[in-house]
């Protein structure tokens, strides 16, 4: 393989991973921007998406059913969590962090009890390779990138072109005023939390065939998603997307020169530096 081809392949891998991280981080960012809840269980919602997909494929033998149904199921679970657990304590940020930590324990251990501790794999639903600069690239990864982009476009349409999106942005801007204008902010909160959970689960289903599934797979994703949200600027959805893709591509390209772990270390250190010199994030406004 020529060095250029290697560069492109690793860069593409990074881009695909960055887009998956973007889905997860956008879910986190949506929830944080609206309710200021740091959701420790968000990584586990990603894990639940992947594990539910595995079960659904076992039952139906069909990846596409899982791709549609798993995010929906986790989205509903997210709405239940918001309504049942978080709403009574939404004014106490630290307490909500703890509640989500409790949920995280419950999810991980329930999966450990039913799914088992051994890592599992899902077959890539689309085989085949695309010829690319003298080498080949898996079609499924291109599909993942496309799927993530469609989901992101859908999110943008939802937020900026629908009535519900307008309500969401209104509640985000000024809850009391929104309520005074007749917006049912409780429903908006519940739907937003569900949407955030569904996005994380969608990331989980898409990532499932290119990674291995186990009950703690959310633990590594969570800090990355946090970092991306902060770097992008709290509450800035575009910033979150840019930071996720940047992190993914940087890490992918660094893989050409160093081991994956070292690449990870460098990208995290880069993020730490950004955090220190520009704490409001790349796109955030100064607080």
């Amino acid at each position: 393989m020529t060095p250029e081809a290697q560069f492109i392949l690793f860069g593409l891998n990074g881009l695909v991973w960055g887009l998956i991280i973007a889905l997860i981080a956008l879910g986190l960012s949506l929830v944080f921007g609206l309710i200021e809840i740091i959701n420790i269980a968000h990584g586990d919602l990603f894990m639940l998406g992947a594990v539910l997909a595995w079960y659904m494929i076992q039952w139906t033998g069909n990846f596409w059913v899982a791709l549609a149904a798993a995010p929906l199921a986790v989205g509903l679970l997210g709405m239940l969590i918001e309504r049942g657990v978080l709403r009574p304590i939404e004014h106490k940020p630290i307490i909500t962090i703890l509640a989500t930590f409790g949920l995280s324990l419950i999810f991980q251990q329930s999966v450990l009890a039913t799914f088992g501790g051994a890592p599992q794999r899902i077959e890539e639903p689309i085989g085949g390779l695309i010829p690319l600069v003298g080498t080949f690239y898996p079609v499924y990864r291109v599909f993942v990138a496309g799927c993530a982009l469609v989901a992101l476009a859908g999110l943008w349409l939802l937020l900026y072109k629908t009535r519900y999106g307008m309500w969401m942005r209104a509640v985000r801007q000024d809850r009391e005023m929104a309520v005074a204008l007749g917006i049912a902010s409780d429903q908006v909160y519940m739907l937003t939390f569900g949407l955030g959970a569904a996005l994380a689960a969608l990331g989980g289903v898409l990532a499932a065939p290119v990674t291995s599934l186990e009950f703690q797979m959310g633990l590594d994703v969570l800090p990355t998603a946090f970092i991306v949200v902060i770097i992008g600027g709290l509450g800035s959805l575009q910033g979150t997307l840019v930071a996720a893709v940047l992190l993914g591509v940087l890490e992918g390209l660094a893989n050409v020169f160093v081991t994956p772990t070292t690449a990870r270390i460098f990208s995290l250190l880069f993020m730490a530096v950004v955090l220190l010199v520009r704490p409001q994030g790349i796109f955030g406004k100064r607080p």
Partner: protein
Amino acid sequence: MSPRLRQAPLVLVATLAALFLAPAVVLPYYRIVLAEILVWGLFGMAFDLLFGYTGMLSFGQALFFGAGAYGAAYAVFKLGAGLWGALAVAVVVATVFAVAVGFFAVRVSGHYFLVLTITFSVVIFLVLESGHWRWITGGYSGRPFPAPPITLGPLSLPLTNSLAGYYFVVAAVAGAYALCYLLLASGLGWVFLSIRENEPRARLLGYNVEGYKLLAFSISGFFAGLSGALYALTSQYTNLSFFHWTISTNAVVWTVIGGTGTLLGPFLGSGLFIAGGDFLSAQVPNFPIAIGVLLLVFVLFAPEGLLGLLRRLARRPTAPV
């Protein structure tokens, strides 16, 4: 003295007396559980100093626990240090770590601080895991090592699985608690509280806020390192997972469950969770689920923590701060 610091001396004396008499009543196995509760409670107390008093929510405390544990192990293993030497090396290593991380971390606050401490945690964990530091860490699974005896003048007592070891842990943790209490009562506690309550105002009054935050972070790292060293020395093993950020979350949980800003609360929290886990693991195959449920029940129905709950039940007015 800060209102939060005024703790019933009777409770303290009774607790100490109970801890000293416990070995006469309970099986040796529960002695080990008690020592573990104390060591992890100390880890929680270090976090409470940082979060409960100074308002800094850190998810990076595991770094200093790990640094203390590995510092002690390294001192015993490579430097041939005795117990006191190992403890000294451990707290120095942990404090140096804390000063280095804190130097950067105190520059940001709120959610940024939380994320930065997680980032440092993950970076240092990955660096250690990557294997370049195998000569110190002995790889992922760490290394077992022989615990040095407790030497007191002419006396030399075994540290592990012994009555002497238990009393050593009780004395060390009680000493650390007293030191932390005195530090906070010295007026430093007031400065920390003022930063927690209103950072700009503390700054306007002329306090070097970053300096005091770094001090709180370093003291907290010192105590976390001490707990790590005690854990490594009494269990005779170290593991890279000590550095993982999920260890830090334990301190957060125990502190909030026990009572934030109380110093004693974290001990209550670690006691409830470790004793509860010990009991449940014998009854229920997946006991961490029960811990998760317990945590949810607590945050929904007693968010002020166990100590707060006790106060409420005793119908005593709570302190204004």
